[in-house]
């Protein structure tokens, strides 16, 4: 029977859930526990099964096998209780051409039992910068405003568990940052958050834990730092004043070193290697710089970046899936 999760108990328990559409297995035997108060990111390419999986919890996907509970209540049998606890920001923008923004918020809250007070509606409008459009027909909102209205509608009944399905798809940089700040604030106030994203940066910036999903299978779940420490790598591009001689590569046979187009070299190393090296021997960067000095090569510039979760993602999705990396619509970095 349902009860608030005791310390150590998860808020959501997904047990062996499989959802098929004919021959297509959209979600393939997924088990996952969401802890109260965490921000969990489901990271995966388009079509990985993210939306279907959260649909199973929110009630938009039916006919799955396995079992899902929220606070101990079964999402199929006790849906009237679980849906009161859960809010969903769907991926697809929607609008109802017959009503104003304020009406839609009031109605949405009303479906859960009683319409929200005017004060609550005003607070939400204000928090999402929609006050100026409160009495406008929802049809005339911009894409970003429609996205914010979706979030307000998901929050109006004050859910304890919020699902955000690709919340920043097609959202500009400013709104994205505001959204992230708001998500963190919601979590501080006790809302558990599950977001799906195919932007690695989003998972990296927000999540406590990350689940990597592809082809309906949950490939890996771990704390963000743990994943990054294990897999993340750094790339250092060193521009020189003349092309690097073959001797440079011969001197450092154990480093992953390659010539750059033009005049320069690229060093790639894993964070984990660098940490181990730091204890005893010089770091890979130190060794490269020493070798350059030894060969009397002048450095024009140095660029470094951390590939972080992207490396994890590529390793898991592309090697375990044995699929070629290109043309999957998966990119590192942030939204365009």
């Amino acid at each position, binding site marked *: 029977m349902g009860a608030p999760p005791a310390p150590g108990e998860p808020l959501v328990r997904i047990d062996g859930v499989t959802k098929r559409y004919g021959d297509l297995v959209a979600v393939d035997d997924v088990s996952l526990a969401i802890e*109260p108060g965490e921000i969990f990111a489901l990271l995966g390419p388009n079509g990985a099964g993210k939306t279907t999986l959260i649909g199973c919890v929110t*009630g938009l996907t039916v006919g799955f096998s396995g079992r899902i509970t929220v606070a101990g209540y079964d999402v199929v049998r006790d849906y009237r209780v679980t849906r009161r606890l859960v809010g969903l920001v769907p991926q697809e923008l929607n609008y109802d051409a017959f009503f104003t923004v304020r009406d839609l918020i009031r109605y949405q809250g009303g479906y859960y039992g009683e319409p929200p007070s005017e004060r609550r509606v005003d607070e939400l409008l204000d928090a999402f910068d929609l006050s100026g459009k409160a009495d406008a027909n929802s049809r005339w909102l911009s894409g970003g405003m429609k996205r914010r209205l979706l979030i307000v509608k998901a929050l109006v009944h004050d859910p304890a568990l919020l699902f955000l399905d690709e919340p920043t798809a097609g959202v500009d940089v400013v709104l994205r940052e505001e959204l992230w700040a708001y998500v963190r604030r919601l979590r501080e106030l006790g809302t558990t958050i599950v977001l799906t994203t195919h932007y690695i940066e989003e998972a990296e910036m927000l999540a406590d834990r990350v689940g990597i999903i592809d082809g309906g299978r949950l490939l890996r779940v771990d704390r963000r730092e743990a994943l990054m420490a294990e897999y993340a790598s750094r790339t250092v591009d060193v521009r020189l004043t003349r092309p690097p001689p073959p001797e440079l590569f011969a001197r450092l046979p154990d480093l992953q070193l390659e010539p750059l187009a033009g005049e320069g070299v690229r060093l790639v190393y894993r964070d984990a290697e660098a940490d181990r090296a730091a204890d005893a021997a010089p770091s890979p960067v130190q060794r490269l710089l020493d070798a350059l000095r030894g060969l009397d090569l002048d450095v024009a510039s140095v660029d470094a970046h951390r590939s972080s979760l992207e490396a994890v993602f590529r390793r898991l999705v592309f090697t375990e899936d044995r699929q070629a990396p290109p043309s999957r619509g998966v990119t590192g970095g942030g939204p365009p």
Partner: protein
Amino acid sequence: MSAATPPDLHGPADAARARVAALLERAREPRLGGVWTLFGKEVRRFWNTAAQTIGSPVVTTLLYFVVFGYSLGDRLRAIDGVPYISFIVPGLVMLGVINNAFINSAFSLFLTKIQGTIVDVLVSPLTPGQILFAYVGASVLRALLVGVIIWIVAALMGAQTLAHLGVTVAFMLLTATMFATLGVVIAIHARDFNHINLLPSFLITPLTFLGGVFYSIDMLPAPWDTLSHFNPILYMVSGLRHGMVGHSDVPVWSGALILVASNAALWGYAWLLLRSGRKLRE
């Protein structure tokens, strides 16, 4: 896989547990407010455009009344002792009730489906029965408003239509419910607007016109008088005509039986569709 290191949270985890506990207290009590919100929303959807959703059908139907009943009626003989001006009122009321009950629920639900706002309802704790009640209820209200306005205006223009009030109200209500529920079923199955327009254009409106709106089937030559008995709408028009003017082509009980049976079948089917989530939750 979920056995991976649990997150190291203290503040947020405790706050989250407290939130869940507080919400569960409220979530466990059944609440009935939700269904009235959805019903109210659907009523406002047609009420906000009342000129189009109520005014327009009333005007169109009254034009039939003015032309056929008021202007030509004097030259047409009374049917079974009922003056023609009174005879056509139940037919016209039925025309308005049937069309508006169907169109309202079918368009509203289908529009919600293609706009994507159906998701807002589907993630809520509303039950299949509540969703059905709200859509059907609002459509019945619109259909009755149209029907009653036509009825009142016709009475003001001299029609005598108060023979059996109870039968009148029962037939209007049952017919409206039946076509509103049919609208819900069609909207769930429809993939584009054509699917919704085809039924009224090619089935409902022809059957209504041929169901004795303007005439008694006794006036038809063979075999049309016999064939008319296979038209279910004839039984509804006849029932309402019995209620309003005391004349009926077929026994009133047969109309009542058809209506109760179709209502039960359609309501059951629509409820099963909504409960299974087919076509909506996929």
